């Protein structure tokens, strides 16, 4: 049995729903039924905690307070508007550009200016670093060398390297790296608190797209879980709609449906009402009880909201918490590798593909997949246009099952 947990808002770390799931079937909505405290769980909850073999957490990180980041770009000079952190809000951190990096064809632009890296790292006064080198999806050597220098200069530094996100487009990859570094401290706090609430159980966090990652992976790459609750909610709603016959649609809904809009997403309230209905049926409540308005009570740093709780900020509509918790519990560990490679001929492409697949498998195991369950889910190869000599963008996704 797996517990799915939806957190409302990490700034206050509020649990808004806990569901129990086995083999894809919803067994019950635990926390919605009765108040639950981590120290003295109710008999029902205690039973679930005993039987659970993993906890899958759905959380959106868009409301966490980002930490200031020391951003290092390894590249040539550029117009001021294209510099790191240009356009970011004040207080986002410090940035520098040091000489070095590679072209997409793998040629070194300049030797890495190690002295400049050392000076910046020592003087930044920050511990969250984001490192982005030109050409790192092809060759990450300079990012790795910078990380080594930072680690030596700043004890305890948390370092994000952009090549691990792999996206082509230096600025996009750099923004990812900076965002990831900025989320690190708060993500660590969220992971700590969830671990305290579910002692002894392996923890997973839902990714923004498909899948989950293990807790330690979430601490290191929180950005991959940035919209974990939203993604889980969509998955949960879809699964509920396909598993349980929907109540007869209101008339306003019918026209929409006949146009092929699908039964899942009516107006948000509509969907919320439907899911509340389903969830209520699943655990034998009356709809009225299930529809109790959110009532948050902080406890042990990890609050808890009753019923189908609302997203804390309320800014982007409501999160159907039980659906998000259910969706998280349905997913399995997933990881991907994105790289740009140069391969002349099919044999060479096969070789680099094999190595990318190996890396994806290693990553998904690191993301918490049971080693025997890890498999390649998809492989995409795109030739880069107008670049001869066999330059390809590879994307490999691997998935697995929770242990």
């Amino acid at each position, binding site marked *: 049995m797996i517990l799915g947990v939806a957190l409302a808002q990490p700034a206050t770390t509020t649990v808004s729903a806990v569901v129990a799931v086995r083999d894809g079937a919803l067994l019950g909505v635990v926390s919605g039924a009765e108040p639950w405290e981590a120290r003295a769980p109710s008999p029902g909850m205690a039973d679930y905690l005993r039987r659970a073999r993993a906890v899958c957490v759905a959380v959106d990180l868009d409301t966490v307070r980002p930490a200031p980041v020391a951003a290092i770009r390894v*590249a*040539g*000079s*550029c*117009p*001021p*508007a*294209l510099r790191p952190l*240009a*356009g970011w809000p004040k207080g986002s951190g410090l940035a520098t550009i040091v000489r070095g*990096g590679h*072209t*997409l*064809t793998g*040629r070194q*632009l300049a030797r890495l200016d190690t002295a400049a890296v050392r000076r910046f790292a020592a003087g930044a006064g920050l511990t969250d670093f984001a490192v982005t080198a*030109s*050409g790192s*999806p092809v060759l990450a050597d300079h990012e790795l060398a910078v990380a080594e220098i930072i680690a030596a200069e700043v004890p305890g530094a948390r370092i994000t390297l952009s090549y691990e996100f792999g996206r*082509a*487009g*230096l*600025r*996009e990859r750099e923004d990812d790296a900076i965002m990831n570094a900025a989320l690190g401290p708060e993500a660590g706090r969220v992971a700590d608190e969830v671990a305290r609430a579910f002692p002894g159980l392996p923890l997973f966090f839902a990714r923004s797209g498909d899948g989950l990652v293990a807790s330690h992976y979430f601490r290191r790459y929180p950005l991959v879980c940035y919209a974990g609750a939203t993604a889980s909610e969509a998955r949960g709603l879809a699964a509920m709609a396909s598993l349980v016959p929907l109540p007869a649609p209101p008339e306003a809904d019918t026209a929409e449906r006949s146009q092929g809009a699908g039964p899942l997403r009516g107006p948000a309230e509509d969907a919320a009402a439907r899911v509340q209905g389903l969830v209520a049926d699943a655990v034998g409540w009356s709809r009225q009880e299930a529809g109790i308005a959110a009532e948050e009570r902080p406890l042990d740093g990890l609050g808890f909201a009753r019923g189908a709780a609302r997203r804390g900020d309320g800014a982007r509509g409501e999160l159907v918490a039980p659906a998000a918790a259910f969706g998280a519990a349905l997913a399995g560990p997933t990881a991907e590798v994105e790289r740009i490679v140069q391969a002349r001929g*099919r044999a060479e*492409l096969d070789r680099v*593909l094999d190595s990318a697949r190996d890396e994806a498998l290693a990553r998904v195991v690191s993301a918490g997949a049971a080693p025997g369950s890890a498999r*390649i889910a*998809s*492989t*995409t*190869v*795109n*030739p*880069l*246009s*107008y*670049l*001869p*000599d066999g330059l390809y*963008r590879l994307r490999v996704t691997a998935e697995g099952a929770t242990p």
Partner: protein
Amino acid sequence: MIDETSLGRFAAGSRLFATGAAEASFELAVDWARSVIGGGVPVVQADELEPRTLCVAITLVGSSTALGEQLPAGDEPARAVRALERRLGARAGAVVALNLAAENALLPVIAAASLGLPLVDADGTGRVFPLVEQTTYTLGGISSTPLALVGPSGELVLLETAPDRVEELVRPVVLSFGGWGMAACYPTSAERLAESCVPGTVRRLLEAGAPGAPRALAAPYGLRTLCVGRIAGVEGSTGHGADLALPSLPSSIVVEEYGGLERLVRLEAHNEVVLALADGAPVAMAPDQICMISTTTGVVVDVDKAEPGMDVEILVLNAAPAWHTARGRLLGGLRAFGVPL
């Protein structure tokens, strides 16, 4: 005038029919343009300029993915134009675009802003072609050379050769730059430019990029819908293992038409769609531009991103009249894309 407020519209207009544009390079071109636009770039008609005014075309050469990865130093457009000026012993008086697709619409604006020159309300294709020489400038007898090519690490190459060898010489140079370069080319007088350009295209993009404006505004010679349907299959000519999607070239895309005649429309692609067959009969081909637009997002679907199940509208943009001459078809027709029809 393209200024801070109209730049967004111009950029949006430049995306309406642009295929194969890398998101990263487009975004950086927009941010770069915004940072240098200052008081704005005047947009002028070629025939309003003093007839002997030296006009220079600006274009990205190479890979837009490479531009997104290895950022410009910032002085590339100005250095390329200055190099041509030195070679010709004359000052440039205006900048013109080679084509107006995505970043290639913005780079001439950046060049004009950096040099304090006006931008000619025109371009050299009326659509996009992959080669430097595939322009109405060439059809009008203007040579693409001398051509100055500037790389992102300060490289500068001045090329003098017969125009039909430009591509062959430029490619390895661009590759050694790291994948992209900025070219200043087709130096000519305003008078000759006026005779060979596709006029009015800059203003059209400014209008077409306004929120709610009809897409057809960006198609100066007419636009028709070939069909609306769902992509049923994408076939590459070379597979690479069963589990691999390798959108190699050439490829074919099969679209099942909704309603109407429920035809099976087959799109033959070489980087871009060059031929459309409906139930086996040719219904559109290069030099006209054939474009897939997602009916869910309204955005152009690139050939290498087409997937079965996508709902698309297939549009045909009529090419400028110059392309529908015997010479035009030779330079930009099916044969130029390797289809011997």
